[in-house]
């Protein structure tokens, strides 16, 4: 225990992950979320109309269905807005930090020397707004991986390049060993 206490003095001088400035996802990413949400709601509305037309008994509940659909839309809008506001990422010299969560705020940190591989995804709408998503995988399985969305594509590419260079460096080192 005494040895650990010794180190607590050191701990103060260690960089603190909870105090770093996080990059918010790009403003335009909110538009993409909205577009996706609208498409989903539209498809749902279409499916519901189809059901109403085909099954006459359902027609009696038309108002309930419409109200339900609208509440769902409002709820999803609020949830996505909340989650969008709370997201943030940061790249440090030795690790990458991602914060997210609608109710609970969770922060995941991956040390760069533990990254297994990186993926850069661009969706159809993302391409219009010049945004991209980065996926960072570790050996920690499904739960230990990051999916950072709404990064300006240039930044995303730069981050990817940087991380890949780091990866190569660590790989070289292990080969020498």
């Amino acid at each position, binding site marked *: *225990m005494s*040895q*650990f*206490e010794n*180190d*607590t003095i*050191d*701990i103060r001088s*260690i*960089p*603190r*992950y*909870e105090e770093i400035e996080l990059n918010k996802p790009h403003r335009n990413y909110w538009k993409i979320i909205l577009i996706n949400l609208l498409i989903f709601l539209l498809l749902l509305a279409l499916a519901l109309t189809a059901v109403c037309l085909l099954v006459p008994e359902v027609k009696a509940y038309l108002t309930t269905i419409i109200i339900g659909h609208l509440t769902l839309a409002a709820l999803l809008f609020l949830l996505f807005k909340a989650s969008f506001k709370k997201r943030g990422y940061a790249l440090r010299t*030795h*690790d990458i930090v991602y914060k997210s*969560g609608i*109710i*609970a*705020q*969770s*922060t*995941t*940190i*991956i*040390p*760069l*020397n*533990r990254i*297994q*591989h990186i*993926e850069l995804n661009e969706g159809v709408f993302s391409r219009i707004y010049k945004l991209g998503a980065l996926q960072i*995988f*570790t*050996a*920690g*399985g*499904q*739960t*230990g*991986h*990051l999916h950072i969305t709404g990064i300006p594509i240039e930044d995303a590419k730069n981050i990817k390049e940087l991380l890949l260079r780091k990866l190569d460096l*660590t790989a070289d*080192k*292990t080969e020498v*060993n």
Partner: protein
Amino acid sequence: MDYDFSKPHRQSAHGIIIMTASTLIKITRALIFPIVIAFVKFKTVSVLYFLLAILVIVLVSLLFAYLWYLKFTFFLNKEKQEFVIHKGIINKDQVTIQLDKIQQVNINQSILQKIIGVYGLKIDTAGAHGEEVSIKAIDEASAYNLKAHLLNRATSASPVEEETKQIQPETLPFLKISALTLFKVGLTSNYGQSLTLLAAFFYFVFHNLREFMNIYEVDKGRVESALTGLTTFFSVSVLIIIFLVALLVINLVRTFVKYFELEISKHQHSLLISSGLFAKKNTLVSPDKVQITAYSQNYFQKKMNMFNVRLKQAKNGHAKNGKELHGSTLEVPGCNVTERDELIKMILGKIPASAKLFIPNWRFLNLPIFFNLVLPIAIFLIIGFNVPQIKPFLPLASVYFLIGVLMIYISYKRHRINVNEEFIIKKSGIWDISHEIITPNKIQAITTFQYPWHKSVDVGHLCLHTAAGQIRFKYGNYTEIKNLVNYWLYQIESGDQDWM
């Protein structure tokens, strides 16, 4: 015998028999009930055709096995440090394994392999491919030599050491589990697995019995009345006792089959674990590939001074594949304190010294009590007051509540982490109390999270992702957790210690 694996090698020719047999076993297992039914139902003429069909199947699998034998070659590329396998009858596959990606090499012997006198060799790898390679027939000397080549790439450059190893391959095992210990282990642990096995067995029997009855158009009513007669004959308590005895017997048999003559010995840089009653299983593990070292003990085992030690290795495959593949966990049951400590010392280099203790907040109790006790009991009471048949059982709710509270309280009392400079030890459990030990360099990623309503009381959660699973610490002091995370990040990032 030459042990130069740099040239393409074939397997032992006995492999043809093994391969044929394994194909046949697979076919039989899939078709066992149709075959039995066919035998009973068909007339004598068709039985002849049927036997002919079996003969054809045997010949075809023999032919395939022969072709497979011809096409299956393996060699070791020393320059590139790769193990290369060529295989495939119609398609040509080339599997290349980098030696440093190899997790463990298993040498097994099934009953058939034992009769013929060959061994099977299986290579577990970690990393991007997650492919598993097995060589089905190889003679003993080659098997152990190949294994040594595959695992000790550092020493393979010096052939002198190889020679000495050749002469004296038998190192004294430092850990041996006796039959008496195994008996105790069988009585006290792994009930859950045996229970599922028993359930699966009953399901299998009943499922097939029903099919069987459908075919013979057995009068269902008669069977059911016979069954109900049986149940009244044996009262419920007798049935429960029979069930428990069956469970214990299965548990004992399973333990003996799996861990008979369990021995652990030290080989250069790795541990050799061998066990098994019918099929001897040899596993060579290098300590730095072990991700989580865990030991557990329940009340009975504590009285008998026994521990179950588990060495968890990285999960095969990759997160990219989207599916969680099974992690390979090696279990050493029935160690006493000194044996456990010896094993831990082998894996971790030393026994974890005393460490700073972190305990969860009492809010740990809230959610489990609500979801496991309050909510179900409320539902039960609501139903109970409305359905008269259930009413007499209402007092059971209080028993459930008391047991539940006790269990949740115990789990809260056991939920601890200990941290010092080199180790993180997570303690948990209600009945089986387990200790999981990792070194910070095994951490792949760290997640911390907090509910907004816990902000004012400074309570939060921690999850350490390792390649062999997660280690969670819930409802801790969030400031302390953040300090720990910063400290671990500093340890991981400042050192260049690899995780395997």
